């Protein structure tokens, strides 16, 4: 299945950590203003794949990548591309909430200021906190330490911080795995709102979550020789969850997979 005009695309990506292969021949597309979910068992390379999209893997020594990661028409691994600029346009939210040990205001403003934001910073902070559905809870305590917030609030702060640099794509790496069910629901609601403005790629090990929020789903699994992760099936979420075409996908989503 091919998406017309994908915003991001991985073409035959193979990735090595030193001598060990982590991803093999992964091809994946993300449609604009849609949520694309990566699901699959632990250790199959979902996070690694996600980190290819904003070159976070560069921070790990001895990583080699072949194939292409396309953002619009740019190949992100082309030597002329600066990973710093890539990460501003393609933001990331992590598994565990990781606010900076600074004030709530600073957490949101820092990345934007760093990247040379020209507008009114107060307005930007308010707008981002509103978009992240956090403004009402924190508007009176913007100068307080972000570490004092609850886990769910911290994660929404991390989302606010990410959208402050005005990215086009937001990568989310199991953003709810450290949160309780109520906080998880709030983040899921937020994701549905955010996709109006942003394109979202999310890694999740929670299949209900993928089914609830995503428009497209990619099923990842280890290759038959169990050496590396690869995508075994990719399609619209509804179709993939109702009539999977691959036997292994069916086993996994019905819970028969070990």
């Amino acid at each position, binding site marked *: 299945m091919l998406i017309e005009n994908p915003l991001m695309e991985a073409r035959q990506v193979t990735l090595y950590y030193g001598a060990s292969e982590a991803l093999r021949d992964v091809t994946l597309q993300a449609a604009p203003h849609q949520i694309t979910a990566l699901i699959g068992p632990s250790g199959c390379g979902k996070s690694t794949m996600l980190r290819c999209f904003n070159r976070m893997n560069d921070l790990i020594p001895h990583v080699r990548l072949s194939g292409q990661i396309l953002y619009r028409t740019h190949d992100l691994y082309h030597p002329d591309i*600066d990973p710093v*600029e890539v990460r*501003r346009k393609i933001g990331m939210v992590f598994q565990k909430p990781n606010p900076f040990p600074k004030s709530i205001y600073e957490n949101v403003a820092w990345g934007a200021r760093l*990247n040379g934001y*020209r507008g009114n910073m107060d307005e930007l902070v308010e707008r981002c906190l509103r978009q992240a559905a956090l403004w009402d809870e924190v508007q009176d305590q913007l100068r307080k330490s972000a570490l004092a917030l609850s886990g769910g609030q911290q994660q929404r702060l991390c989302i606010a911080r990410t959208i402050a640099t*005005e990215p086009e794509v937001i990568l989310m790496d199991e953003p709810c795995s450290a949160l309780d069910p109520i906080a998880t629901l709030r983040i899921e609601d937020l994701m549905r709102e955010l996709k109006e403005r942003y394109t979202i790629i999310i890694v999740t090990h929670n299949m209900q979550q993928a089914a609830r929020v995503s428009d497209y789903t990619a099923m990842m699994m280890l290759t038959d020789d169990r050496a590396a992760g690869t995508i075994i099936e990719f399609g619209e979420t509804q179709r993939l969850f109702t009539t999977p075409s691959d036997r292994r996908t069916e086993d996994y989503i019905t819970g028969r997979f070990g």
Partner: protein
Amino acid sequence: MSFDPERSNFAPTLRSRRTWARIGRWLFIAATVVALAALMMMLYNVATSTVGLVAVEYEREPSTLVEQPLEEVSKEELVALLQANISAGLFRRLEHDQPFATRSRETVYDLVIEHVVAETIVRSWPLDKSLVDRAAIEAEIAADYPTARVRFHAWLQPQFLTRSMSSNPEQAGVRTALLGSLWMVLITMLLAFPIGVGSAIYLEEYASDTLLNSILQSNINNLAGIPSIIYGMLGLAIFVRTLEPYTSGAAFGVLDGNGRTILSASLTMALLILPIIIVSAQEAIRAVPQSIRLASYGLGATRWQTTWYQVLPVAMPGILTGTILAMSRAIGETAPLIVVGASTFIVSDPTGPFSKFTVLPIQIYQWTSRPQAEFRHLAATAIVVLLVLLLTLNATAVLVRQRLGRLP
């Protein structure tokens, strides 16, 4: 490059940020290089002074004494030479100090050099200068000391370890200081090891009263931060002065002494390294899995039986590693021993806890403080001895950790 420069809310600052990032990176690397270079320079500065050119003057040219080079002459001939060339009184005195029959060829040779040849070093250079500027050095000597001869001299040589202190730099060695260091460290460790490990056991295995425990703990942390010279003053007031009858040995029948003895120094040093031993032993004991203790209690062992038969054997590699590091601290420490009263010039070897003493770092300090260049060479050579000693200890600590650490 930027993806959408024209309609962005963001100023195109990436180029200058990248430049700053590069500058920052180079600054951090430069700091590391400068730091390492300074420390390496120090080692180089020491090493290059352990051998080098010296200009020597003789009262009697060795070649006018015997045909063959003096180094190859036998002991009997050397004794004969000595007898022929020095006054009968001096010869008798030397014979009286120690009969020539029992002296080694080495010491007789030294006597010939000292009394007959009467070699004196008039100037000396470090190795780097000796190699680069040899011509200039020889010209300088030819002008200033026409009778002097320029030759290489290795300050670092085996005899340096076996000779005792001497006011003649060519005859001086570190035997007395080395023995002093060994005596001091031996007694220090005999005192500090059991007490330190005992304290650690108490704090980790016995102390349940949390207030007492926390007072003890924070007190130990404080002690570790007190400057060593203050321990020296404690030692001066308590061990040297107040306890003089005991530390001088008077209470045990040693008569001619004051409190400035190896025993006082060791007691002082033991207090100084105690916090180090306690803290490292505590860490080692804490690392022993709780399951071992529970298993032992489960078999009906008492607390001490559990500690002695189960906990300590497992913790021992860690305890020993920390102890060895504390030992190297004791060997290198200088300031407190100055205050406690290490002798700076002493020729007789220490014979026991009540001896007057000097130690290697004190010897280095003393030689460094002398204005003559020759003594600087001796200081550098003694530093090499000290550093080799410390490096050996450090290597032993690493080995102990690796070897014993692997046992279950």
